[in-house]
């Protein structure tokens, strides 16, 4: 038999869960990632700081008061290694740094220091709004932009960081609940907006001729993908299966899938054994909808179109783009962040 305290506690938990569910449902129409509004969590899906490229990172506090953030560089190919740091931004302040060198703090304390990314980094940057004590808050204050610069030729590709907005409820612990319903892990349900159910990328078919460069040239597309579920604290890599649904100019559909563990910088030519090449698609361009496999968590993505003067030759130009998105992912995503005291 339950004690009165336990009953009250149980009833309170039930009511809280129902309340969280009701509000989550009420806000579901707007619960998606954003690159156009300030958010509580920012994911820069592609950061490169190696001998071939550097990344200019811009991080803004869009709020009227100070903002504290906890950020982590996460190296994809090198086994999910995270380098975390705390940063404070003044009201309305934007900080800029190069991933390869970081930045020093101003002597008067008006600008914060940022460490350099680990040498050879290819991966993502994750930033979470926290309070002065380092606890996540769900306040929508951050916005970001990144520009990847190829050192050899100065080619640039810029994109906006992908934001997840606070959902209104936050228990301020290191387990960040991204979309979804109340569960044992996420007792009050979503603390942050869900990741999208689908990303829509318009792109040239891989291997299509670049009309401006003429015969013999080729176009290709890369997708930097990071799962929305990330255990940064314990260094546990998450995985997601990405389903590709491609429609060519003739309204024909093609499908493929690819497994992404921790982070990936996929060449479309490598997806589905060449299913997305111009030879297979039969048209010079296509629209691809990327979805997590049924029941799996979401992911974020940024696309890059590359231009080659000759097929298989070096990239002579690239342009990055934030794809459009649709709906909220079915799966419950969780980001677990380390505690980094400012």
């Amino acid at each position, binding site marked *: 038999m339950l004690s009165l305290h336990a009953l009250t506690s149980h009833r309170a938990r039930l009511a809280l869960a129902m*309340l969280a569910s*009701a509000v989550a449902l*009420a806000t579901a129409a707007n619960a998606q990632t954003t690159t156009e509004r300030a958010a509580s969590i920012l994911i820069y899906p592609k950061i490169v700081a190696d001998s071939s490229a*550097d990344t200019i990172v811009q991080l803004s506090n869009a709020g009227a008061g100070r903002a504290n953030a906890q950020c982590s560089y996460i190296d994809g190919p090198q086994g999910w290694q995270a380098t975390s740091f705390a940063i404070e931004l003044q009201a309305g302040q934007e900080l800029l740094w190069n991933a*390869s060198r970081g930045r020093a703090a101003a002597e008067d304390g008006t600008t914060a220091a940022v460490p350099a990314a680990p040498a050879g980094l290819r991966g993502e940057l994750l930033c979470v709004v926290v309070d002065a004590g380092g606890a996540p808050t769900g306040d929508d204050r951050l916005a970001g932009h990144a520009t990847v610069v190829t050192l050899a030729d100065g080619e*640039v590709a810029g994109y906006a960081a992908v934001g997840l907005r606070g959902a209104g409820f936050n228990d301020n612990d290191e387990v960040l609940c991204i979309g979804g319903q109340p569960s044992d892990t996420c007792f009050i349900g979503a603390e942050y907006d869900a990741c999208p159910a689908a990303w829509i990328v318009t792109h040239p078919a891989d291997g299509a001729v670049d009309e401006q460069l003429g015969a013999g040239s080729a176009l290709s597309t890369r997708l930097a993908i990071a799962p929305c579920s990330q255990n940064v604290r314990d260094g546990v890599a998450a995985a997601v299966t990405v389903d590709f649904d491609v429609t060519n100019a003739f309204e024909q559909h093609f499908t493929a899938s690819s497994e992404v563990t921790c982070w990936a910088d996929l060449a479309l030519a490598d997806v589905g054994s060449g299913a997305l090449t111009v030879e297979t698609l039969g048209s010079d361009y296509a629209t691809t909808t990327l979805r997590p496999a049924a029941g799996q968590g979401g992911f974020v993505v940024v696309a890059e179109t590359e231009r080659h003067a000759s097929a298989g030759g070096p990239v002579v130009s690239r342009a990055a783009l934030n794809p459009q998105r649709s709906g909220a992912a079915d799966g419950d995503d969780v980001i677990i962040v380390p505690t980094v005291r400012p």
Partner: protein
Amino acid sequence: MRLPRGLRALCAVAAIVMPLAGTARALPSSEAPASLLVFPLVSVDATAGVDTVVQLTNTGAAAQSVRCVYIDASLSAAAESGFVVTLTPAQPLRWRAGAGLASLPIAGDNSGTIPAVPVTPFSGTLRCVSAQTDGTPSAADVLIGVATVEHSAPVDSASYAAIGFAGTGASADAPEVLVLGGAQAEYAACPTQSELPLLLDDAVIDLGADSAVQRTTSTLIALATCSSRPSLGGAQATVNLVVSNEFGQELSFTRSIPEILITDLSRLDTAVPQQSMFNAANAGSPHSVVTISPNSSGGGVLAVALTAFTDPSDASATHRAAVQARVSGDQPLPDLVDLALPTPAPLSCAGDCNGDGSVAINELILGVNIALGTSPLSACAAIDADGSGSVAINELIAAVNAALTGC
């Protein structure tokens, strides 16, 4: 059984929060399918090796017609044109603005063609709205678009997503005029504020772990009023521009802008770029979030920027990246997009140089001389029936027909 007081209070809060959550208003967005797409920057200049690749996708499960309008920043009647195409379900279309698309991929299911931009060089906007097959606008939030501005020397490209306005489901009386925001909104309202995270002009950026690579930056900014009135000489807006450097210091400037303004960032506030508040040395830091706030009693403004990174030791080594604006707030007053374009002189009276209602032999000869370049167009503007600034063979034929059969 009564809930404890604390839970009752929580439920009361929920009762307030839930309706608020449901009434959140839609902002224009480049992130989701929409009914109206605005491409603020389309550039075509064959001489300079510049063209823009436009991708337009119908994400819906049904066929969708789309009506599009090109408007050059000059706002001259000859520099505006429109077209209507029908896309099949989920179909993408891709074309170069400088060439258009003479035939669409699926004969029979697709309809219409896409012309090249009306003039070259062209530097202006493209608006596309979901429509019925006859071109009458009809909201359907299924369109997404991407523009890629390409340069050939050196090879370079920068992509941005079109800014989309979702339909509200309402329909105003004038089908040719789209109402953005306001009490009778047919489409989402324009934002009260746009923010561009920019590297300022003449900023020097060190790159690489050893800072061995340097680049200087400059930005081309495209501002387009949300309202569009090409048949009335173009819309206008007044905007307040604010630069906030990394030390929290602010510089601001207020100016009016025409319907389309495509300019160097450092020429927004002065004719002398070195004196601009958008110059890194004057702003006090190499970067800033540039805030663009239209006057609340006027119309809204949309923005996109292309930042160029140039090797200081080789000015020809320039590469560009697009920067999209973050947006917030709803403009309180509606913006109106008038799809009607100025009507050029009717083709049936082509060649009637003196306006007497008939075409005489001397007028035909004059028309041929203009086509050959031996007489100026100003000698007989009526021969240029489509207002393109030149005389084509079809216009000479139309003039001959008018001479034979009357105007």
